[in-house]
């Protein structure tokens, strides 16, 4: 009885996700033992503020990945949207609420643009989003005249947006952004597994032709995958502004790779059709833990890149081997 329940729990979480949870625990223990300074509450805060924007991007990019596509435009997109947001506040004197809406709106617009080109004109997603990655990189600078982005600092008007991510009470910082993330992970999990848009996105990654022949307007739902990606890039732009005080135009290339890496480690197949938001969540946790923890044991950022690369290869290899076995059995 207990064994059966145990098995069904394992099945529900998924082997790959269990492996990641295991790795997370082992790594966390390792860093804690190896470095005294890692064992501090502030480490968790650092880790969480780095995690927010990557997590948001990663949740979003999971959807194009599930269709068998990819969205490379989110990295430079985050910077572009965030700079435009700051321009709205600083130069145009608009309230921060408007700036946030515009920031998210731009993400949605670029996502829609990508989606239309991929789904309607049927260009390869890699090419499409590679181009829009370049476009948004330039666009951010042009719209704001090449100025750096600065969102309201603590104490300034509109700084309440920072409280969305961390709240300081009596000198202790609380990473309330985690609550936001957990809510979004839950909501998007439900969207993916129990709503039509999620179902059709999985179906597109599985066999788009079949979906079309079933009489479904596949293009419309295909576009939605990229809109999700853009929407979350917009959210990530706000989180990014909450983490960094100064946002340099023209940067951001490469952020998307961390986000995509997180989704892949979490078990999303690049060929589309299978994956989960919880997997993505765990994948990003792993990447963030590495990024935060490695410097404490004396390994710098470059090592983190190498290790992340190795982990992705391992994760995908395990996943493919398991699929092959499943097919054979």
């Amino acid at each position, binding site marked *: 009885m207990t064994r059966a329940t145990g098995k069904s729990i394992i099945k529900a979480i998924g082997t790959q996700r269990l492996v990641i949870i295991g790795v997370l625990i082992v790594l966390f223990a390792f860093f804690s033992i190896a470095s005294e300074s890692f064992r501090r509450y502030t480490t968790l805060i650092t880790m969480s503020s780095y995690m927010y924007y990557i997590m948001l991007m990663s949740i979003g990019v999971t959807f194009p990945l599930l269709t068998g596509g990819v969205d490379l435009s989110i990295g430079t997109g985050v910077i572009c949207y965030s700079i435009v947001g700051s321009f709205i506040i600083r130069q145009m004197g608009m309230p921060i609420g408007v700036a946030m809406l515009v920031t998210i709106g731009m993400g949605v617009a670029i996502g829609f643009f990508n989606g239309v080109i991929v789904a309607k004109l049927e260009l390869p997603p890699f090419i499409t989003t590679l181009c829009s990655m370049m476009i948004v990189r330039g666009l951010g600078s042009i719209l704001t005249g090449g100025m750096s982005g600065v969102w309201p600092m603590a104490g300034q008007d509109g700084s309440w947006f920072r409280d969305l991510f961390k709240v300081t009470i009596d000198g202790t910082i609380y990473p309330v952004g985690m609550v936001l993330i957990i809510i979004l992970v839950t909501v998007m999990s*439900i969207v993916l597994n*129990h*709503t*039509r848009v999620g*179902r*059709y996105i*999985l*179906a597109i*990654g*599985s*066999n788009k*032709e*079949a*979906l079309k*022949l*079933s*009489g*479904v307007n596949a293009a419309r739902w295909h576009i939605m995958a990229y809109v999700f990606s853009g929407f979350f890039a917009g959210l990530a732009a706000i989180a990014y502004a909450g983490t960094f005080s100064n946002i340099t135009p023209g940067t951001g290339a490469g952020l998307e790779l961390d986000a995509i890496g997180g989704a892949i480690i979490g078990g999303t197949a690049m060929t589309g*059709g*299978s994956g989960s938001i919880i997997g993505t969540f765990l994948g990003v946790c792993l990447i963030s833990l590495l990024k935060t923890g490695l410097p404490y044991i004396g390994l710098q950022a470059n090592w983190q890149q190498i290790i992340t690369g190795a982990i992705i290869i391992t994760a995908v290899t395990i996943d493919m081997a398991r699929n092959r076995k*499943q097919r*054979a*059995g």
Partner: protein
Amino acid sequence: MNEVILTMEGIDKSFPGVHALDHVSLEVAKGEVHALMGENGAGKSTLMKVLTGIYSRDAGSIVYDGRKVCFSSPREAQAAGIVIVHQELNMMGHLTVAQNIFIGREHTRGFLIDDAQMNDAARQLFRQLNIDIDPKEKMGRLTVGKQQMCEIAKAISHEAKVIIFDEPSAALTDTEIEQLFRIIRVLRNKQYGIVYISHRMDEIKQITDRVTVMRDGKTVGTLITAQSSKDDIVRMMVGRVIFEKPKTVSHVPADAPVVLKVANLNAGRMVRDVSFELRKGEILGFSGLMGAGRTETARAVFGADIKESGEVFINGKKVQIHSPQDAVREGIGYLSEDRKRYGVVLKKNIVENSTLACLRRYVKRGDLIDSTAERKDTTAYVAALKTKTPGIEQLVMNLSGGNQQKVVVAKWLISNSNILIFDEPTRGIDVGAKQEIYELMNLLVKEGKSIIMISSEMPEILRMSDRIIVMCEGRITAEFDVAEATQEKIMNAATRDIAV
């Protein structure tokens, strides 16, 4: 006769350079299984695409259920009750059976999809058809036969009145085909109008009420199946008579040397302790049901899958084959059952495909390919094998199935293969081209090549093989000389374990 549900009349359709349909007519009655036959390229699929609104028609009328219709998309046709069960199954492997069946018509509660209700509805459909499939199973994990049953269930759930089966049996085993026929009979009794597209003559005789034959975009005529013979139909299809006579005696001389010997081969669950010999000039037929382990055996011998144990001898000499490269070096060629995936490179031309397996031979001066030699050899084989193509520069994707198969044969002949493994050599190939493939195989063995032929078609096995090996669940269960083999004996051996 029953009330007519569908009448297509004078349907005309042209594509640039091709008059695909030339005043074609087709009539289907309620409770009728109507066969649509014709060689590949005769216009059957085009006609069905016009019917379901994938193509628009240039002229002609379609009357369905008493009114004139003109569908502009498959969705409209589906909504009206005309559904195709496609030849290449249109399923989404990552979704469950129920999710596949109700795709696009999900039961929802608010924003959320009600999967439990969909599972119940799917279960009910399966009960109607008397089949046993778990609606919660992932579609990709079902056998092709079961996937097809799901497609049928889906068609019924659309409240279809006309169901079109496009070569439904192409990938099914004999038992699965029987089950398919049982279901089709259930549908016939429920007064569905059924269009059945197939190349297989014995099926047409078994299951259909009338046959409409098409050739070169025209309707040749409609026959009542029960009153016509196989040859009547075939004559209408190709304009010439083909006699499918089984081989009665082995053509291999008694003293022919053994060219390939496989001893105690084990590879996974599907290849258990397999031993056999192949002699020079012999066609050795491998019969059995789908999943009997025949393809797996061939792949293990060829080095495409890992062998756990066992020995392979070529011309009496023990050889180590760990990869297809090794096999090719030893003179073994493998013609996959899935030609489009494993046999040819569709987007390359005939020359590139023909020399693919032995390109090294055409490389000289550094790493440049000698294209003159390449073209010369390809031209020779195109002529020898009578490959029908406008030129050797033709992309393989533009050739018919039979001619693609010939390109694969050329590839192995060019690389000096003496042992050819044909895995389902005529799958998806029409009757006329089938005959040519058979002739080609006979010619090859006459010239001293040896052939292993894996086939799920009983007439093919009996017609072509000198000797027949039957497999069941990964083991060899029988071996017959063609003189003593009968369909019953083979079927018995193929189902030995399952029947008990």
